[in-house]
């Protein structure tokens, strides 16, 4: 292995640089690290990587950290460039990790265990050379690891955030279908928790559908709404008012007996909105408003 990294050979001619020291002990440190990390993991067998893969990940990580330490000027911290191989590797690690949320802290634990190991080796190196103060390189290493850990943590967090916002979006898309039940009759089955964002989206969808289909009646079914509190009620009332302005009457269905009791205790009045206990009754009402009804087919044998 080529020896690089002695920046100032005149000042410390007899000592090897820290990175060089670590480089010469690379295999030793790596073996120690593997021994520390892998057995504990094998027992639980983490889903994200086989021992061979983990070994490879750790080795790459170690080499990249070492090369960053080697190439940086001794009085500065190595740069954590977005495009640096180390950062790419860390991001990759974070992406792997994102699939196993229960082991989200693994990359950090990995880094911390390596830091501990390296610091111990630094003390060993210093005892031999006895020229430099021990604190300086240790502090530098420590701060470097802090930055790496911070970077890893940030990558994990930003990945999570992205997942969450993507899920939010897909939930939003899933949750508010406006169905055309019959000519001029729309059905809006509400399922799940209604917060302000969803309420606005529901209203948008519904009003747009009312205008498009020239709906005269809209059945809003609340069977799937777990809790109707004042804010949910308020959102629904606003939607109803807006629907009315577009010329559509609203039939409210699916309020549970407990829900009805709670609403009255809360002091919420749904005023002159037509309410029906079940979706079936609501649809019958909607058909009646539009002058239709569902009847049994006439028996052709007895006209």
């Amino acid at each position, binding site marked *: 292995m080529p020896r690089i990294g002695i920046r100032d050979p005149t000042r410390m001619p007899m000592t090897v640089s820290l990175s060089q020291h670590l480089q010469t002990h690379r295999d030793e440190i790596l073996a120690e690290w593997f021994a520390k990390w892998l057995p504990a993991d094998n027992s639980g067998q983490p889903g994200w990587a086989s021992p061979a893969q983990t070994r490879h990940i750790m080795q790459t990580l170690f080499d990249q950290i070492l090369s960053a330490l080697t190439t940086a000027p001794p009085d500065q911290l190595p740069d954590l460039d977005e495009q640096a191989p180390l950062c790419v590797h860390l991001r990759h690690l974070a992406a792997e990790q994102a699939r196993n949320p229960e082991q989200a802290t693994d990359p950090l634990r990995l880094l911390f265990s390596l830091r501990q190991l390296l610091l111990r080796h630094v003390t060993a190196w210093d005892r031999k050379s006895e020229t430099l103060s021990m604190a300086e390189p240790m502090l530098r290493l420590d701060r470097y690891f802090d930055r790496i850990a911070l970077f890893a943590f940030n990558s994990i967090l930003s990945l999570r955030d992205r997942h969450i916002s993507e899920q939010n979006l897909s939930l939003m898309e899933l949750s508010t279908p406006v169905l055309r039940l019959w000519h001029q009759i729309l059905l809006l089955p509400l399922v799940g928790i209604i917060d302000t964002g969803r309420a606005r989206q529901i209203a948008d969808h519904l009003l747009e559908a009312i205008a498009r289909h020239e709906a005269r009646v809209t059945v809003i079914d609340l069977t799937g709404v777990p809790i109707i*509190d004042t804010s949910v009620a308020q959102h629904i009332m606003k939607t109803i008012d807006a629907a009315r302005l577009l010329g559509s009457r609203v039939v409210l269905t699916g309020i549970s007996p*407990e829900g009805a*009791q*709670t609403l009255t*205790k*809360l002091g919420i009045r749904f005023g002159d909105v037509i309410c029906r206990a079940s979706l079936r009754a609501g649809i019958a009402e909607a058909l009646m408003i539009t002058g239709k009804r569902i009847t049994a087919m006439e028996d052709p044998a007895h006209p």
Partner: protein
Amino acid sequence: MQAARAARQMAEHLGFGRAQAYHVATAASELTANMAVHAGGGTLHLQPLTDNDGSIIGLEMRAEDQGPGIPDLDLAMTEGYSTARRLGCGLPGASRLMDEFSISSTFGQGTRIRAIKWCRHRPVDRS
């Protein structure tokens, strides 16, 4: 809404009826919504109340926040009054949903609300 779910689960776990569990859940949802809107957040504690012999007699709910506080409690408990252009029946409604309701607020320091829902088998002294 998480609070409402937790409150409902707890109430059902404690053997409340469906309607009562719904009341508790809605009250929890009102109180947390209030804290979120007016105080920018707060904490809601749910706690089962037990009798001396260990049987469950009720559920206590404590909402605490470090918000601006409520300057006029009577006004805040008035039906239809709201500073945030909401329906204005959250607080009075929640107090009706629960069996006992006490509120204290220090201007500029936050608001504490304590509410209790008794089980159907109420202690004798309350009947």
